[in-house]
């Protein structure tokens, strides 16, 4: 493996450790213990503290926490007695992954089509329309849009189930709500990239060879414009994760996001921290993957030495 990959891997690990450590100490700083319940007497509290290892010195707790983490153990839920955070996450991940993946695929596809046509018909009515749509999609908060979808499509017109999770049709509205920002982001990004590539000298070279417009666009413009879209995957992933936190709440999707909101209400700190950590790990891993993928797609990037000129 090259130095570049090693360096990226190094950063990834440091970032993970920083996040995990920060999470641990933040948990220590939380107002009161998780069990500040008046009905518990001191003996019960001590027992609970002992059970969760909260009576040991902080350094020991930290080391134990980190070694558990390495083994994928995120601790136990403070509210659901006897259930580990890992269990909660693995039960809840399915629906989130499904709507997240659907939104990513759908959003990227629509975004690509919009962005490419917009750039090819630069300054046309179509271009202006898609630019306007992109600005709206990026600006209107996803929960406002989701609420509108639920109200009109779900409740008023009754076209699709407005909430709950009982079959495939229940995934459609949450997916749509999640994909709006993806569509807007991808469309905007690809449009800028395309316009940038179209004005490059090598496109002129291609035209000067006598290639027709279609070949110039497909062979020279599209490929060069699409490669950087890979770099959008990281930001898009985080966008979708952010989105699931509110969208699942709105559409009552039994996913991680809904669990998160529930845990916030009942102060189940260990689950909140667990989901937060899980999302960070996922995100950081995505960024790392994107780096590798980009290196494979763009011949100028040599995985040993980073990007070269030209």
């Amino acid at each position, binding site marked *: 493996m090259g130095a570049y990959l090693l360096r990226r891997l190094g950063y990834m690990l440091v970032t993970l450790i920083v996040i995990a450590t920060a999470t641990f100490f933040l948990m220590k700083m939380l107002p009161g213990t998780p069990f500040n319940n008046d009905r518990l007497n001191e003996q019960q509290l001590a027992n609970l503290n002992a059970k969760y290892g909260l009576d040991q010195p902080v350094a020991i707790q930290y080391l134990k926490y980190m070694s558990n983490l390495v083994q994928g153990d995120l601790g136990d839920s403070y509210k659901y007695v006897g259930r580990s955070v890992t269990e909660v996450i693995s039960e809840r991940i399915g629906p989130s992954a499904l709507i997240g993946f659907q939104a990513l695929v759908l959003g990227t596809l629509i975004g690509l089509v919009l962005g490419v046509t917009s750039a090819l018909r630069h300054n046309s009515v179509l271009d202006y329309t898609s630019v306007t749509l992109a600005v709206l999609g990026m600006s209107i908060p996803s929960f406002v849009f989701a609420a509108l979808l639920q109200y009109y499509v779900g409740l008023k017109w009754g076209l699709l189930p407005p909430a709950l999770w009982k079959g495939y049709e229940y995934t459609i509205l949450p997916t749509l709500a999640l994909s709006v920002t993806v569509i807007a982001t991808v469309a905007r990004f690809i449009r800028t990239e395309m316009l940038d590539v179209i004005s490059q*000298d*090598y496109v002129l*070279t*291609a035209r000067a060879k*006598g*290639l027709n417009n279609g070949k110039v666009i497909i062979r020279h413009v599209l490929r*060069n414009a699409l*490669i950087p879209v890979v770099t959008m995957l990281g930001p898009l992933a985080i966008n979708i994760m952010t989105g699931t936190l509110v969208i699942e709440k709105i559409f009552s999707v039994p996913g991680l996001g809904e669990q998160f909101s529930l845990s916030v209400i009942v102060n189940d700190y260990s689950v909140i921290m667990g989901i937060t950590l899980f999302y960070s790990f996922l995100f950081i891993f995505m960024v790392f993957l994107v780096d590798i993928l980009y290196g494979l797609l763009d011949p100028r990037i040599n995985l040993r030495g980073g990007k070269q000129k030209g």
Partner: protein
Amino acid sequence: MNETILSVENLRISFHLQDRVIQAVRGVSFSLKKGETLAIVGESGSGKSVTAKSLMRLLPPQTTQITDGSIHYLNKDILKYSPREIEALRGKEISMVFQDPMTSLNPTMKIGKQIMEGLVQHQTLTKAEARQKAIEMLKLVGIPNAEERIEAYPHQFSGGMRQRVVIAIALACRPNVLIADEPTTALDVTIQAQILDLMKSVQEQTQMGLILITHDLGVVANMAQRVAVMYTGEIVEIGPTEEIFSNPQHPYTKGLLKSMPRLDANRQEPLVPIPGSPPDVSRLGAGCAFAPRCPYVMKVCHHHSPPETRLDDQHLTSCWLHDQRSQKAKEIFQAQGSL
């Protein structure tokens, strides 16, 4: 050997910007013979690159418009060509080499494929044949290990090598005309000479016509049989290279030559820059565009643009000093010692 392959008549090109229209090329005429090298010189913004691109109809149609004139290639006006005919012309009959080899190659496509693309477009070849031809082209332009290098990406080449690849792409289909738009400006001096020699030797073999766009008079002296001097979208003087260098007739040409260091010149003679800078082409008045910077400017120059004067068979210039009525003014300039 004396047949004219390309002739441009009264070409006018305008640029449509958001808030104004710029006349980038204002009535340019010249011709090119088989095996001949014509240099077009001028400062940046003089319209030389725009003229060059128009010869292949490569100007973006959204913002540029050829408002007048004709471009005849082998007696057919390419301005009247259909898009399909234009595509058949580009790369096969007329080719172009661009200024910056760092940006004129597709960074994500192997160079072999970039050369083969043009070949496959214009000739019926199998993949293997196209590949073989691409290797030949790389050898022709002096790239060592052509068989291996064909699989390389542009970033794996130096600037000079890249320009060789660009030339290989341009020459792949043996065009009749090669337009080189400042082909050596972005390169090191030593590499410049190699690239120019390469173009010269290819020209000797194929008898193609070469239009060399440059602002470097040294390159002109070395390469071209004829020179056209452009200023703000017009050709102010055109003629055989030797004559232009030894007996320039337009004040701008004179200025250009005086501002260039020469090995054969008297060392005592200082270099003289042309005062001022080229005017904004969107704000040109009615008179001669060079008048504000011209040391021999007359009243007439401010109000009327000078007509073209034919000094001899080949040498033409547009300057009021060549009007008989300017005799008196010339005497004044002579008395001042400036003419």
